[in-house]
């Protein structure tokens, strides 16, 4: 037999919303059939009567009184629940601890909240990226599109619109930029300086900027273009715009262009643009053979050379030393790269040494995998990352191929890259060391480079020390690492 018990708090006012929330809590307690906390107005008393929770005490309450009404399975439960309801009423209210900070959901709202914003970084599924980029451009913003899978016709359309509006579109698939000292997406903390970078490739820009930083130089701006900008159909619209911006920028003295080989027609346009500039240019089109450049430009065969030429220094590596373990019986180099451009740079170094090399992303002159010769794999390419994170975000992607490479008796050297900076994994070296520790018995030499600066969120020195302690030969640049691997073959 259920029991209805009421309790009246004379002259106790609480807002009805607060009371309704408490009613819900009370009604949910064990043994409670229904409950109400309401001010004793005539209308409320009628509601409580209809709900079968009003007893004589409650019926006698007036508008200024709070009625606590419970119908429970028995009287003891009802009284216990009312005691709990009283406690709930009297407990101090917590401050706004659950309040979340407001974050804008649209570019428009962000811009209204912070009117000085001048660049939008767009990272949404590719099918929506162009539409968001277009809106940002129309709102007077420069745009960096991190998203990939944007149709090339949309890229051309956006870049033409940006040119008309006097704006910049970096990307799509632009992974790296440093604008006014601010690293965007995958980028390193590099001091500001007089060298501007225009990069079609993310890790290429990271490698060049990190070597410049290590050698005492600095970056004015590193502008990303997206990997397709120098294709015939896009025609280098963003590259040309970026050159214009750096040309106008008084802080920039030297401009470095980093890209895979552009279309021939685009090379001509870029060459003409460079010839019109009063600034010094260093051009690194990885994998492109001889290139005819104007007097104010120098060609760099590797990313490392591009950095040193930009600094006006002689190219300096750290020659081979004898820390490498014996290379075993193998004759082959297997490279496992997180950075696509670092993979391309290594291929060009092997090709220049007259060696046969294959890759899943071959540069001109290299063979498509599988093929004989040395094998340099870009683990960031689509076939490895479909539905999975990029190896710069999750270095574990490399574990399995790395383990296999260590066990493969054909390998004399395993060549690796480690890329630090914003956006990257907190401890990429740790993943490599863990694989090495699990490996038993003889193994090929492991040679690596670490792309990063001492100001990066990961501890550059710690990463290098960790690798060296595990027997990895760490070289100051990716080009040095590739050359050291070649040296091992000569000596082996």
């Amino acid at each position: 037999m259920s029991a209805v018990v009421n309790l009246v708090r004379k002259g106790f006012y609480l807002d009805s919303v607060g009371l309704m929330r408490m009613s819900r809590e009370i009604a949910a307690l064990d043994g409670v059939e229904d409950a109400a906390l309401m001010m004793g107005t005539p209308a409320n008393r009628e509601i409580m009567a209809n709900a079968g929770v009003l007893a004589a005490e409650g019926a006698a309450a007036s508008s200024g009184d709070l009625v606590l009404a419970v119908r429970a399975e028995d009287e003891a439960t009802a009284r216990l629940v009312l005691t709990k309801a009283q406690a709930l009423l009297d407990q101090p209210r917590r401050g706004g601890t659950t309040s979340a900070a407001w974050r804008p959901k649209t570019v428009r709202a962000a811009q209204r909240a912070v009117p000085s914003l001048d660049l939008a970084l767009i990272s949404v599924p590719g099918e929506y990226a162009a539409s968001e980029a277009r809106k940002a451009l129309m709102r007077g913003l420069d745009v960096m599109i991190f998203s990939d899978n944007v149709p090339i016709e949309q890229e051309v359309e956006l870049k033409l619109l940006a040119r008309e509006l006097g704006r910049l579109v970096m990307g799509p698939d632009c992974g790296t930029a440093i604008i006014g000292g601010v690293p965007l997406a995958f980028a390193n903390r590099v001091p500001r300086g007089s060298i501007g970078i225009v990069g079609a490739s993310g890790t290429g820009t990271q490698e060049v900027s990190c070597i410049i930083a290590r050698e005492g130089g600095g970056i004015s701006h590193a502008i990303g273009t997206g990997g397709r900008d120098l294709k015939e159909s896009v025609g280098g619209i963003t590259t040309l715009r970026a050159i214009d911006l750096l040309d106008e920028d008084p802080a920039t003295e030297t401009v470095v262009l980093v890209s895979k080989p552009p279309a021939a027609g685009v090379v001509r346009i870029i060459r003409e643009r460079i010839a019109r500039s009063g600034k010094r240019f260093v051009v690194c089109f990885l994998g492109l053979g001889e290139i005819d450049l104007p007097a104010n430009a120098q060609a760099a065969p590797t990313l490392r050379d591009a950095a040193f030429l930009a600094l006006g220094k002689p190219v300096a590596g750290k020659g081979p030393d004898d820390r490498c373990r014996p290379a075993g019986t193998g004759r082959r180099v297997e490279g496992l790269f997180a950075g696509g451009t670092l993979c391309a740079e290594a291929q060009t170094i092997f090709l220049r040494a007259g060696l046969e090399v294959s890759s899943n992303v071959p540069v001109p002159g290299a063979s498509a995998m599988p093929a004989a010769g040395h094998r340099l794999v870009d683990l960031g390419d689509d076939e490895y990352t479909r539905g999975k994170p990029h190896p710069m975000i999750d270095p574990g992607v490399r574990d399995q191929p790395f383990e296999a490479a260590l066990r493969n008796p054909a390998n004399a050297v395993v060549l690796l890259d480690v890329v630090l900076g914003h956006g990257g994994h907190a401890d990429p070296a740790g993943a490599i060391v863990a694989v090495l520790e699990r490996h038993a018995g003889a193994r090929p030499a492991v040679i690596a480079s670490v792309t990063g600066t001492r100001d990066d969120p990961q501890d550059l020195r710690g990463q290098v020390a960790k690798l060296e302690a595990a027997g990895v030969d760490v070289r100051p640049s990716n080009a040095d690492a590739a050359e050291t691997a070649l040296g091992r073959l000569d000596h082996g």
Partner: protein
Amino acid sequence: MARSTAGQTGIAGRIDAANREALRRMLAADPVLVDVVPAHSVMPALAERTILHAGPPIGWERMCGPMRGAVAGIAVFEGWAKDLDEAEALARDGAFTFDANHHHDAVGPMTGMTTRSQMVMVVENRAFGNSTYCTINEGLGKVMRFGGNDPEVLTRLRWLKDVLGPALGRALRDCGGVPLKNLVARGLTMGDEMHQRNVACSGLFLRAIAPALARTSDDRGRLAEALAFIAANDQFFLNIAMALGKAIMDPVRNIDGSSVVTAMSRNGTDFGIRVSGCGDEWFTAPVEQPRGLYFPGYDEADANPDMGDSTIVETIGLGGFAMAASPAVAGFVGAGSAADAALFTREMSEITLVENPEWTIPALDYQGVPSGIDIRLVADSGITPIINTGIAHRLAGVGQVGAGIVNAPLGCFTLAVRAFAGRLGVSR
């Protein structure tokens, strides 16, 4: 880096100019409550057996339970049927003419019944000369706007018609009307958002009208009844706020090229919006179910979907849009804390064009309420207007069972954007 001014296509510029005019009219409005009169005296369409309802147009067949209950109740009240059963039979047989309040300069809360002999409050927008109408709020509990229709409900309606309505009319004529813009501004600083919470504005209104009520009354008993009724009804001001909303938005209708929403409204079955640049066309989608808190004895299973013309207050930047002014109301959102109230208001600024400089919120450092809903911003962001609302029982005759929040359905906004683009000659 060098910049130049962004170019604008011709159509975007045209929409911007039209929207500027829409906002100018919204912000220039000067709504004043001037009178209370019999509905038929100001709404010529209100012939015998004509019933105006909330929301976009709907016939008896598609009406929800509480709307049907209210139709039956109001038919008995008007003397068109002797009892509820006869009224329902007449409705089924097509004896009544139904139309939307919005088509007749009127708005009504929840079921929104407006018929010829009810008294309606008159709000005049003195900046533009238009007037709008709304019935008098019946109070809480079992009331017609939530589908109640028993003798108690009908007796109260008669008292509103015969006693309170005429008294308020006399008082308003005597004092020259009560200006509303400033009253709302003060209410916002006192914790009202004018949809779910009208405690402050109801009190401020009573303070404004009491002297004139006393001056124009020759019956102390009836004066006391009138004062007590207003004083006991925390939602008294809601119906005034609604007529005010309609008075502000009507001059904004039919501006060629404007993408500003001029009305949002629901009939318990459909949610409809009207857009300035799309004439008087309704864009509708099925209404959603409110999320809220319930009176003892009721839960979600009893709730009728969203209903009423009261969303006109959100259309002018109040209600859910002004949640930051009314932290207590934010508590209706499940786990929402009072401190979260500001987030609702800030989110609504994503889909509105301006902040109203005259209606400000102290807790947001006197930021104005987000006003001027742009259908393009809604369709583009997927953020839909948030609405504070009462919840009716899904069956006829029961009345209010709770209160909560609900979002406008995205569907009517995407429909509207397509039609709007069509009118401007834009194709995909």
